[in-house]
């Protein structure tokens, strides 16, 4: 029987973040978050790859948006199996990449990587975007620890 994963979130804190993230997850399902270098890939494959990546992206984001449905909004609990957890992991990366190229585009790569930013120097939307960025990272860390306890144990 597949192991279920349950994550309990502080609803008053997380709800505004989810409200911010859901439109981001539902928009531009045909846009890849990272421009990839396909110069060494067979030309015949490129269109097929793009199509496949767009389909995978849409599928991962659909799992993410499905999790934070009405039930979550009343309980603060998200529950999923391992396959869904992997999709959520990827969806978190997609959304972090979108935040980076969107509302957080003004931050340097170094600042994003280190997390050392002037939070109160950001405008209100930037602060919300950065909080979402951290929330997604935290969700990913939780899932990684659950899926593979060896990672981070050393």
């Amino acid at each position, binding site marked *: 029987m597949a192991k279920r994963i349950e994550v309990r979130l502080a609803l008053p804190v997380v709800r505004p973040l989810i409200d911010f993230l859901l439109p981001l997850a539902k928009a531009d399902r045909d846009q890849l978050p990272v421009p990839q270098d396909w110069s060494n890939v067979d030309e015949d494959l490129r269109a097929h790859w793009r199509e496949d990546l767009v389909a995978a992206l849409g599928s991962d984001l659909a799992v993410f948006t499905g999790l934070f449905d009405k039930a979550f909004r009343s309980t603060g609990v998200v529950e999923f199996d391992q396959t869904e957890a992997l999709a959520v*992991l*990827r969806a978190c*990366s997609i959304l*972090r990449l979108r935040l*980076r190229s969107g509302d957080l585009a003004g931050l340097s*790569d170094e600042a*994003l990587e280190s997390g050392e930013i002037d939070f109160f120097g950001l405008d209100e939307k930037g602060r919300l975007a950065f909080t979402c960025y951290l929330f997604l990272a935290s969700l*990913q860390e939780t899932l*990684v*620890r659950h899926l593979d306890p060896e990672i981070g144990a050393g």
Partner: protein
Amino acid sequence: MTQTKTRPETEADSATELVDPWHVVVLNDPVNLMSYVVLVFKRVFGYDEVRARRHMLEVHQRGRSVVWTGNREKAEAYVHTLHQWQLTAVLEHGEAN
């Protein structure tokens, strides 16, 4: 999702890989978490914790890591799978790393 294509190994395959190697190279990005990248390397390539972590640190510190070398068909499949995990990965031809 696309699965990595596999087929029976043959001596001809091995010879081709030695003569005409293709590298799967992962490049650093400021977004993906270290633990996430380790998990991806373990799942995609079947690497153990030590090897996956070594490649992750190489990406982080040196900006790139050759994570797999072999024939073109498999290398392409791996690059595509890494793209599905939102890592920045490229296919490179040749011996020089």
